[in-house]
């Protein structure tokens, strides 16, 4: 949907909100909710994305040893194997459940990056 349509819809709803506030008659001022919502949204977006973010954001390898991984292979589908045996740190644990999977993806794992369902 184009930007102008979205703005028009919003403006229409501002009018509805102001009327509702006047009818109910207990708001700080008519249009209080719309003002806080829209100005808050716009203000925070401008400040965060326009001013603070560009100042404080760096490339992902800024802390070279702590570069965030693209893929967390140790957390991915961690339950498919026994969590203890997987890391080899605790003998004696029973095998845990492969049968608790909740079939969220019936299409299966043709394009699994590793491991797989």
């Amino acid at each position, binding site marked *: 949907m184009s*930007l102008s349509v*979205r*703005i028009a819809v*919003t403006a229409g*709803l501002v009018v509805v*909100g102001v009327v509702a*506030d006047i009818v109910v008659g*207990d*708001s700080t001022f008519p249009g*209080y*909710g*719309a003002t*806080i919502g*829209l100005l*808050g*949204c*716009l*203000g*925070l*977006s401008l400040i*965060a*994305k326009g001013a*603070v*973010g560009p100042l*404080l*954001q*760096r*490339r*992902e390898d800024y*802390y070279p*040893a702590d570069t*965030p*991984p693209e*893929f*967390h292979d*140790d*957390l*991915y*589908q*961690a*339950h498919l194997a*026994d*969590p*203890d045996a997987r890391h080899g*740190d*605790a003998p004696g*644990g*029973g095998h845990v*459940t492969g049968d*608790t*999977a*909740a079939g*969220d*993806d019936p299409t299966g*794992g043709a*394009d*699994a*990056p590793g491991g*797989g*369902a």
Partner: protein
Amino acid sequence: MNELLLHPVLPFLVGAVLISRVPRRVGHVVMIAAPLVALGQIAALDTGTSVGLSYLHYDLEVLRVDALSTPFGVIFAIAGVIAGVYGLTVQRRMERTAALAYAGGAIGVVFAGDLLTFFVFWEIKAVASTFVILARGTPVSGRAGMRYLFVHILGGKLLLAGVLLHHSQTGSLQFTGFEVTAASSLILAACLLSAAVPPLHAWLADAYPTASVAGTVFLSAYTTKAAVYALARGFAGFEVLIYLGIAMALFGVTYAMFENDIRRLLSYHIVSQVGYMVAAVGVGTELAVNGATAHAFAHILYKALLLMGAGAVLHATGISRANALGGLARRMRGVFVLYMVGAVSIAGFPLFSGFISKELSVEAAYGEQLLWLVILMKVVAVGTFLSTGLKLPYSTWFGPEGAGPSSNTGARVHVGAVPVTMFVAMGISAGLNLLLGLAPGLLYDLLPYPVDYTPYSLAKVLETSQVLLFTGLGFWILHERLGTKPKVSLDTDWTYRRLPHVVANATAQWQAAGATPAVMGAALVRIRHAVARRFAVVHGPTPVTSMWALGSVVLATSVLLLLMSLSS
């Protein structure tokens, strides 16, 4: 003395020892039973129960049950059940031990009647939570865990110094409301660090997202909320907390706006939401302390739900960066719906827990004529809904490519299965969030002071609905411009993660250029070597190994001290 057997710490600490020894299947039972037993014990303990002990020459109150400790104890136990169920199939043995000890430490903190007991449990909590982070066992979590420990040891020392100074000045170890003194300022600083008040907050967003998916859920519940409890107990009405609280609330939402990692984004919202509680404690009226307590209670429930949802996505896809997710709505429908229950709760939608808890703090600010605070609290609510309720779910489950199957990068993300236990835990949490929203009396009856407040009036519901509706419309207009980039954000942890490198490099350059006199140069070499040795940890033995060595030394020292104190 029978009441001591009802101390809610016991099942957690016994469970922590037990779970490291029993077979894994029995461990499942221990993990759930420990917090449930604690919940039963809290129900069985009468308000006003107090158990004293004499240790050395100190009169300690190891168990104090009153109107402020009970609600925190109840929610800590419930959080233990939820996070325990969530982690049943994925948590390792050491992580479970650490998690139970951590929860036990936090419960001990809220039921401690004197400052020495409080300090001991505070430290158990700090060390055990470090192991929760380290338990993931990756180099990144190892380093983040050690930084976390470094910060919390500093906090622990501030607390100990404050407690000792307080005792030497007043002769009392009772933990009650403080006056402004040097001693109480030290204790306040320790509590502020633990509540993640900027600039002492960076440990939270640094360490929490590096733990395992279930570890992060545990971490989100206890440390900051135990600190809120301590602030409410000792520092209610300290005006500085109003300003610190609202500043941290705004700080958290601002950082969350450009954060790309979904669990780090939610971590910044912990900072932000705890800001509400700190500000309410600063207002300090009965209604405000009720508000802080209620919000801590609700916050644990919905934040756990949000982190469980994000964790389920991470578990199923292996991806935590919002820019690489997207297009999951059709493939992870259940997780999406449950996550959204958490999102509307944190945003304070009528009928959900955040509405009935947040409005108490807002009303308290109104009551004290702090209109600027009311407006800023509303703006924070806007930012909260914008990040956690709109931007994060949009980029994770939808994105420019729609509901699926293409991700934000255009490729197709593989989605694995999510264990039933994760759904059960999220279901319990979502159910409780809805229950509190529908029947606020359940929570209000638990609060420290009588509540004379009706959240559901037409005017309040209309105002909140409008604020959230227009936030949604604002996002609808702006959403193309709100996407995040794969970047890291600098925070105050820069001072101990990067600054030493900068100093070391600068001194090396000066030396190479021969710009420093010989004497100064030698001093700089020494500093640089010291810095280099500090950083050698990065390449040394794995942090877990070194922690075990450290832990055994600490244990041996404690046993020695105990024996000495008993023989004296």
